[in-house]
């Protein structure tokens, strides 16, 4: 097994998803409601991982723009479930780099009067370790 394949194994383990199953049909990207916000599109996650361009993925803002709406997961015809690859990227950043996307100090000024608790909890889960 090459070094790259070993790294991909790790991502496979975290995500529970196999990027090699992707056939580049783009149904995920077609379905993605956050398309306009994502610098790397959902269908590209599999190819970035396979090519070993993990750094670029980790530096992208795409991982933080995913809404976790599961549309890509639901519709993927190859069972790659791109949303899981996106989340794995987020995990890698949060775990290894501590690069949280949301700092507690930011919260007070973002708070709105009627903001539901669910929003804050979700945002902390998604944006932080």
């Amino acid at each position, binding site marked *: 097994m090459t070094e790259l394949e070993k790294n991909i194994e790790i991502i496979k*383990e*975290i*995500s*529970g998803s196999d990027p090699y199953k992707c056939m580049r049909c783009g149904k995920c990207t077609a379905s993605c*409601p*956050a398309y306009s*916000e994502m610098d790397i599109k959902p269908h590209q996650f599999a190819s970035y991982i396979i090519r070993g361009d993990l750094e670029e993925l980790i530096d992208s803002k795409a991982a933080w*723009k995913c*809404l*976790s*709406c*599961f*549309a890509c*997961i*639901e519709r993927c015809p190859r069972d790659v479930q791109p*949303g*899981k690859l996106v*989340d*794995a990227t987020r*995990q890698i950043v949060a775990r290894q780099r501590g690069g949280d*996307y*949301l700092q507690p100090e930011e919260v007070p000024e*973002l708070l*709105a009067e*009627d*903001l*539901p*608790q*669910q*929003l*804050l*909890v*979700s*945002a902390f*889960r*998604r*944006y932080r370790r």
Partner: protein
Amino acid sequence: MKYSYYPGCTLKNKAQDLDKYARASAVALGFELEEIPEWQCCGGVYPLGSDEIATKLSSVRALNYAKEQGQDLITLCSACHHVLKRVNDDMKNVEDIKNRANNYCEFDEPYQGETKVLHFLEVIRDVIGFEELSKKVVNPLEGRKIGAYYGCLTLRPGKILDFDDPENPKIMEDFIRALGGEPVVYSMRNECCGGYTALKDPDFTKQRTEQIFDDSTGFGADCLITACPLCMYNLNKSEAKSKVPVYYFTELLAEALGVMEGA
């Protein structure tokens, strides 16, 4: 019929309407909600990473509690529904998560996904039945054209949540029909409202909700119903020209059953 009830954090605060009308309606429909004592927040989103354990434990505790009571577990909030059902599926089918969570929790006997998790709407559909519900309606919502807004968390992933057809659901439409209203079917009903990105990208959620209002009102909806406090927040924040009132489904239920006052 008694059910364990998991209200979740938001229903205790910003979404009290969702909760109180549900409780009043449950009484009218003849079933009892027993709130789980000392429940902990589900976390709002399901941790997708297959090696995430700690973040799933609060759900496991609630699920195990319901098992000990010998009751099915009801939720209302679409996020809690999503998280509880998925963690339950993990505890049933994913050997590694099951073992590690049980090792940590040290219950009297290991929890293996025995509890049945139900959304309030599923109880109405599968236990009470829409026909029975319509018989109990005292103030039918006649003439109201109501769009069901499902969002994402109640439906997907369809295989695990098993709530309804994730691409072409009909449970809320049937519900509206049972209450005497006219359901409005539109294609954005299962598209994301923008979710938690409202915190850092409020403009983006505004774009999304505008599309939802445009589509639903285009088909003639004069109001929307939802089961999700976050969808409710985002839809309410919308500045869309086509904006119409948004209700929790339980509010219309209480109205139709004539139990608004007591709630």
